[in-house]
């Protein structure tokens, strides 16, 4: 009996000639908030589909909530909740009717459903009338109702596929309060996102690229691994001096970052020389690498 919530070993998913997921292995512990990052088309959604029982793997071993695919996908579906990327509530039904239908699908007895839906709606802070048609709800509220629907059957593990896409920053922050709340209740949360600041909130994250995992670990761990050398932000308020680029490149590598530059210093002595050379024309400060830097370096940079 494994303790881990999710165990994936060498998962491969192929559609004809195309390999969407290439020998992915990972392990998620109970109560973790696990983040899944990657560019579009990297294979994140496909992997989630396998883990939620919607898609069967071509090769590899998958154990979710102690159950593997051999017992049939429905066993897995009963233990997990899934909030998909596309918005999947019925827009022509009310909030209450949608939740009622979701409960009927999972054969939740009516009293339990009533209690739980009230709790959950409270939990997400939904205070509008439950007989509002879903299409009349503002954007952020729709995500919240969708989350409630995926939690109705009290699953141990919840999969959230880009849950905050297209939502205001305030609503996003509120949503992550909810996610932390879920983890505090002992649920395992598996979330994919594009937002780097959200990735920073996860216990551990996995970076996916072209169907394979290229990095896996806690955010700080990954930052340290990607940027073992010190990182500086370089900025010239007025015109940069001639030849500054050569001077910087002699000291390390540079990456544009908005209107400024991030310099990874490899040769500290040359760096000091360069700083001396530029003097007061350069504004330099030491920075901590962000996950965005990590992402740019590993996922979108050259292979």
């Amino acid at each position, binding site marked *: 009996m494994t303790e881990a919530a999710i165990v994936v070993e060498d998962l491969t998913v192929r*559609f004809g000639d195309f390999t969407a997921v290439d020998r992915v292995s990972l392990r998620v512990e109970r109560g973790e908030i696990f983040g899944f990052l990657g560019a579009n088309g990297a294979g994140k959604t496909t992997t989630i*589909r396998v883990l*939620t*029982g*919607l*898609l*069967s793997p071509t090769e590899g071993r998958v154990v979710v909530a102690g159950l593997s695919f051999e017992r049939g*996908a*429905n*066993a897995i*579906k*009963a233990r997990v909740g*899934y909030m*998909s990327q*596309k*918005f*999947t*509530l*019925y*827009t*022509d*039904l009310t909030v209450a*009717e949608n939740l*009622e*239908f*979701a*409960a*009927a*699908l*999972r*054969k939740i*007895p009516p009293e339990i459903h009533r209690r739980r839906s009230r709790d959950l709606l409270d939990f997400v802070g939904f205070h509008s009338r439950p007989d509002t048609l879903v299409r009349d709800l503002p954007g952020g509220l729709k995500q919240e109702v969708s989350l409630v*629907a995926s939690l109705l059957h009290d699953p141990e593990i919840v999969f959230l596929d880009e849950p905050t896409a297209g939502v205001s920053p305030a609503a996003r922050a509120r949503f992550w309060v909810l996610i932390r709340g879920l983890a505090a209740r002992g649920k395992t949360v598996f979330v994919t996102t594009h937002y780097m600041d959200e990735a920073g909130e996860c216990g551990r994250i996995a970076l996916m690229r072209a169907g394979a995992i290229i990095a896996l670990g806690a955010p700080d761990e990954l930052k340290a691994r990607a940027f073992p050398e010190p990182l500086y932000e370089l900025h010239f308020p007025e015109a940069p001096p001639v030849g500054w680029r050569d001077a910087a490149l002699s000291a390390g590598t540079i990456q544009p970052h908005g209107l400024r530059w991030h310099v990874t210093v490899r040769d500290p002595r040359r760096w000091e020389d360069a700083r001396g050379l530029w003097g007061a024309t350069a504004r330099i400060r030491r920075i901590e690498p962000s996950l965005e830097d990590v992402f740019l370096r590993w996922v979108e940079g050259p292979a």
Partner: protein
Amino acid sequence: MNATLVGFVRKEFRQALRDRRMRVVIFVIPVVQMTLFGLALSNEVKNVRLSVQAPPADRLMDDLRKGAWGSGWFRPAPDQGDPVRLLETGRADAVLIAPGGGASRARERGDGRAQLVVDGTNALRARAIDGYVHALLRRASDETPPPVVAFDVRTLYNPTLATAVYLVPGVMGLILGLITILLTSMSLAREREMGTLETLLAAPVPRWEIFLGKTLPFVLLGLADVPLLVGFAHLVFGVPVRGPLWALALNAGAFVVTMVATGTLISTFAKNQQQAMMGGFLFLFPAILLSGVMAPVENFPLWAKPLAWLNPIQYFVSLNRQVMLRGAVGPLFWSEWAVLCALGVVIALWAAARLNPDLR
């Protein structure tokens, strides 16, 4: 009571009946259409515009004219003008030309046939017009010798040969079939397009429950239309219901189930709503033409008959006519009903098999 199925029925009913326009589509339009078609349609040959061209004092032709307008089958058309032109312009359906000097005089002489020029574009109508004019002439001449063989004709079940009585049971099948296919063929495609299909598949619901959940609500809605249509047919058109009601119910039940299964099957093939609609049309159009309402099934060429035998609408129409108009429930009824049920089962199984829970 299976909670999932009840949930499905609730959801589909709410979605279908919430919009007032859908309520009109499901309940009002079928009744309106039945009224319209029942009152308007007739395959009798009536209102034939007849031009009678004869010299002014021709008494025989005058008698004929009186007989013609009086019979109710004919309407007057211009008596002058080139017959061919009259037919070309559509101002007359047939032109009767008296023999030279007038028909009365020709009869006295014992010779001379009248000439009839008929618009032949509609062959059935043309033949009937020929027969009618023959009858008119005979009546006007009243000098025919007694026939050698004479027939006493008795028409059963519809003595007045009222068209509505014959047509309405058939038209009922067309309307019921149309509405059930319309309701179901888009349902799955719509869920796929909107993305809600994933919600369904993400839940641990076995395939047969999804299938029943997507079909049962529409079977119920379709069946709700049946008493409406039958009641209307009986009260407004006087179409009798000579057979037992349970036979009517069996027929309607098997038919609605089969059509809902067909619509669902079409929906599994369609990638989006537009394809679903076209698929529905591709099924309905031939099914209507091969149903026996527009043209008799007996006349189909041999290679086309199997298609009629696979057509659920054809069975419903035949059984409905049998039950409503003739009333007897014999071996023919049971064998046709069994085939209809078998069709329904096969199509339903096929549709259920195609409902693949794997989102591949």
